[in-house]
């Protein structure tokens, strides 16, 4: 508190400086007059001493001495930057790239690995799990609990104060209208208590509400649901919500931002609401378990106890499964959420960008040294005028930290822009299929810039500034001023060849650039081919969505009939040209591969299988190669099938398949041959499209509409149609088909963009590195060039000399980089769609880009070398 008051008073002083001076002046005059009246004016003045000095000393007491010196350095630094805008821009840009990459990766690392769980005491919460090793080569899997096992563990353990189960499931909410699919967690009563999350309104579940099916139909709403369905009305507590056809009384509202431990729930109901079977079946392992540790119990002790209890239960009542080994354990909740592979991957990625930053710093150190060589006289002059070495070092450090902070700010902007890009490249959650786990972890939440991230960026900037500034600063301060003023160099003359360490570093950078350029080139070519690859369908102007018919009302034939009614209505909507159902969508997922037999022959091939409605070929504009498409009558008549070209070729070996029969569960007559359709990322997918649209498959089915205009514009009309015919059926996952296509390629697109960005980053850094090293080398050899020019060397000779050095470096970089690039390309594997890892054109292009850029980067210093004025360079010798 006292320090604070002091700082406040000092700040006030800054604004009242003039007032302060007047006060002090008057005060001292008063003092002097009083004294003079007593002792005579002369003696008084003599004793009073130097009044100006006294005022200075008094004022200094208030001052910010260090700060004022700092301000001076900052002003001086700004002037210096103004004088060399090229250097300033290069330095800030380099740092922005290095720091931006670091900030971006750290943001993800922080949110995935370091961000604490949002519960009051997360350390006391454990995750309890069962494991099963079925000896099928898949290793040990972690699975959830069944209710009987959960109950027994709860009764028998001595390590947990309380335990709770939870399972995330999708359910249909029908009242209040409109019907919609919603993620709900089925939870134990202790769930909220263990997490330490109280209700924002009303209450959470009571102890006896979770175990008996049908006894307590109560629910807790999430904040979003409360706002959207109840207008945030406090009176919503006590009202009823219909979930999967059953009424639940709302007893409370969860706090804003809480979506359960699963992170997705909008609604909570008791475990028992999942049905009597789920509560009694010992082998139905359907929910996750969390527990609050008793005080003093460590997670390791808890895990040992859980294992002991579950093993002894397993001996009495085996869970079954031949060869299967069941076990159990517990781990701190935070740890259980951490994907170790992901964390390791991120740390490696982080090390990589850290390395990039180090390279950036090394390059900048070179650049600063080069600039320093040009500032010898200034430094020498300041030394001669009495500037201390300390103040010189401080001056240089301040300049560098300023550059670093500028770079850091620009880097932050870059990082934010990069995050936006990431966010755009990221598909919606349900489409993650082919994505590696580290990419799946990048959710919008993890892409936000938070205070820890900002602090990290600031600290890293300052650190980088000190790192690349320290060596040049110390060197500047070690110089001998007398030498310069005598006409010599401030520092020991540099060696004539490029310093070896710097050369190795540069060559290494170039090799890295070649690897990244080649990798990016290959993926970009592959991606371009992928985008041109025929999908077999026309995706534009197609709307796709799902309709969740309540299965209690619609089973078997009833579902098909209801869907036919809906399709007829959809077909009558203005702008709709065709409507069809299908079990899944082309491009989106891999086909289910089924063994197919030809009725007469010995052929038995594994072929992708899909069930579609009659207008499927019209909706997706799939051309027929032979025969006919399905008709409405096919739905009721004998089963028929249509083969893709490749499937027909494979099964019938060039014979005419029309009229023949294939065995796919039923015997189906082949009525047509269609063009190849791409499912998932299989490119030569052999697809059979049968018309036998089966009710059991319907639950996961899609409706597709070909429309005249913008597909998304039709969504409200579709919802109206469904609400009129069946108010309890939600319409969900409604999207344009083009979005599915975009999502299917998102993984490839993401890798391509990421590699491209990294390659660009490396190239930019290498340019700065080359430019910096050559600038320095040229500056250090000024005298040598002067002598050469004086003794008759022409400009072209000097150019050759400098560029020759550059060419040697390029050759070294290529020699190391090309084999490494080839090796790296082989690991890219699946990313390279239709491109060979050894694609010569790509390597030639990558090498050409590197050589051209490298030579361009050393051209400017070389040109400067030719402009050395021998008279100036040699004057004082």
């Amino acid at each position: 508190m006292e320090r604070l008051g002091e700082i406040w008073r000092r700040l006030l002083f800054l604004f009242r400086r003039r007032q302060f001076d007047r006060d002090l002046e008057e005060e001292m005059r008063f003092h002097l007059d009083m004294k003079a009246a007593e002792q005579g004016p002369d003696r008084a003045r003599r004793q009073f001493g130097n009044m100006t000095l006294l005022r200075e000393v008094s004022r200094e007491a208030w001052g910010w001495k260090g700060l004022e010196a700092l301000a001076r350095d900052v002003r001086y630094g700004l002037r210096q930057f103004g004088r060399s805008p090229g250097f300033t821009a290069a330095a800030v840009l380099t740092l922005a790239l290095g720091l931006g990459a670091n900030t971006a990766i750290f943001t993800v690392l922080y949110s995935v690995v370091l961000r604490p769980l949002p519960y009051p005491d997360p350390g006391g919460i454990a995750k309890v799990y069962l494991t099963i090793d079925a000896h099928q080569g898949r290793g040990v899997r972690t699975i959830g609990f069944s209710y009987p096992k959960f109950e027994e563990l709860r009764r028998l353990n001595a390590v947990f104060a309380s335990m709770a189960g939870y399972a995330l499931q999708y359910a249909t909410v029908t009242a209040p209208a409109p019907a919609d699919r919603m993620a709900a967690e089925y939870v134990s009563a202790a769930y909220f208590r263990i997490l330490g999350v109280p209700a924002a309104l009303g209450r959470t579940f009571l102890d006896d509400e979770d175990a008996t099916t049908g006894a307590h139909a109560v629910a807790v709403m999430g904040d979003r649901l409360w706002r959207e369905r109840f207008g945030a009305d406090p009176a919503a507590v006590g009202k009823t919500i219909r979930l999967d056809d059953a009424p639940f009384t709302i007893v409370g509202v969860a706090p804003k931002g809480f979506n359960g431990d699963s992170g997705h729930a909008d609604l909570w109901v008791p475990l028992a609401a999942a049905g009597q079977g789920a509560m009694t079946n010992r082998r139905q392992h359907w929910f996750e378990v969390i527990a609050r540790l008793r005080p003093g119990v460590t997670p390791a002790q808890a895990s040992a106890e859980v294992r002991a209890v579950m093993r002894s239960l397993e001996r009495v009542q085996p869970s079954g499964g031949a060869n299967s080994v069941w076990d159990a354990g517990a781990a701190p909740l935070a740890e259980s959420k951490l994907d170790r592979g992901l964390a390791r991957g991120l740390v490696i990625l982080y090390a990589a960008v850290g390395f990039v930053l180090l390279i950036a710093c090394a390059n900048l150190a070179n650049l600063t040294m080069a600039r320093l060589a040009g500032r010898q006289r200034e430094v020498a002059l300041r030394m001669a005028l009495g500037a201390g070495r300390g103040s010189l070092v401080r001056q240089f450090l301040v300049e560098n930290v300023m550059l670093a902070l500028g770079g850091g700010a620009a880097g932050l902007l870059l990082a934010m822009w990069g995050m936006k890009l990431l966010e755009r490249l990221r598909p919606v959650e349900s489409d993650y299929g082919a994505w590696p786990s580290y990419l799946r972890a990048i959710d919008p939440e993890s892409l936000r810039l938070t205070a820890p991230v900002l602090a990290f960026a600031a600290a890293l900037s300052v650190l980088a500034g000190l790192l690349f500034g320290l060596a040049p600063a110390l060197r500047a301060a070690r110089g001998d001023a007398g030498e310069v003023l005598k006409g010599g160099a401030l520092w020991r003359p540099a060696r004539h060849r490029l310093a070896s360490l710097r050369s190795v570093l540069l060559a290494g950078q170039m090799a890295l650039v070649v690897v990244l350029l080649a990798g990016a080139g290959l993926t970009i070519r592959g991606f371009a081919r992928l985008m041109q690859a025929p999908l077999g369908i026309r995706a534009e102007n197609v709307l796709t969505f799902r309709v969740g018919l309540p299965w209690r009302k619609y089973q078997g034939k009833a579902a098909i009939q209801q869907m036919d009614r809906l399709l007829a209505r959809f077909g009558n909507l203005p702008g709709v040209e065709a409507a069809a159902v299908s079990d899944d969508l082309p491009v989106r997922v891999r086909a289910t591969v089924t063994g197919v037999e030809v009725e007469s022959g010995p052929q038995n091939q594994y072929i992708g299988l899909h069930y579609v409605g009659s207008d499927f070929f019209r909706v997706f504009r799939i051309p027929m190669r032979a025969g006919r498409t399905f008709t409405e009558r096919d739905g009721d008549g004998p089963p028929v099938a249509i083969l893709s070209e490749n499937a027909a070729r494979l099964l019938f070996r060039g014979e005419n398949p029309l009229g023949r029969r294939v065995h796919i569960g039923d015997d189906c007559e082949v009525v047509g041959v269609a063009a190849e359709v791409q499912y998932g990322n299989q490119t030569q997918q052999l697809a059979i499209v049968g018309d036998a649209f089966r009710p059991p498959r319907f639950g996961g089915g899609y409706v597709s509409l070909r429309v005249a205009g913008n597909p998304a514009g039709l969504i409200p009309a579709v919802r109206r149609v469904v609400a009129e015919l069946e108010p309890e059926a939600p319409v969900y996952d409604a999207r344009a088909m083009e979005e599915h296509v975009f999502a299917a390629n998102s993984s490839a697109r993401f890798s391509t963009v990421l590699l491209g960005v990294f390659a660009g980053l490396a190239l930019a850094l290498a340019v700065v590195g080359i430019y910096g090293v050559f600038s320095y080398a040229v500056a250090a050899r000024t005298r040598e060039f002067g002598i050469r020019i004086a003794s008759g060397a022409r400009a072209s000779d000097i150019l050759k000399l400098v560029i020759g050095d550059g060419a040697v470096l390029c050759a070294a970089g290529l020699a190391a980089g090309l084999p490494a690039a080839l090796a790296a390309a082989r690991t890219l594997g699946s990313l390279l769609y239709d491109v060979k890892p050894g694609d010569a054109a790509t390597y030639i292009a990558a090498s050409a880009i590197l050589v051209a850029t490298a030579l361009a980067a050393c051209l400017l210093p070389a040109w400067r070398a030719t402009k050395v004025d021998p008279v100036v360079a040699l004057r004082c010798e």
Partner: protein
Amino acid sequence: MGTEQESSRTEIPPGTLYMLVLKSLARLGQMHGYGIAQHIQQLSVDVLQVEEGSLYPALQRMLIKGWVTAEWGQSDHNRRARYYKLTPAGRKQLTVEISEFEKVMEAIARVIQPA
């Protein structure tokens, strides 16, 4: 806040100027700089000379630390003078300074005591 360089030039024992000023203000209620110097000189029977070169910087530091406040007022001679006044923090500081000074004095006395 650092050592008092100026006190090496004064006849006032190093580090005691704050204590003397604070004590004077505690006695006088409020007083201007000149009055404080006079007061110290008189009470010490002219032994302690307060130099202006030390007094004013010291008063500034005490203002910063919040031990005293200053206000312009009318002096006895009907002139404007800047009067200093103790704050509660200053009063607390005074007891700290005195107890520390006594500790030092006691220690010195023990050292120079005839054996």
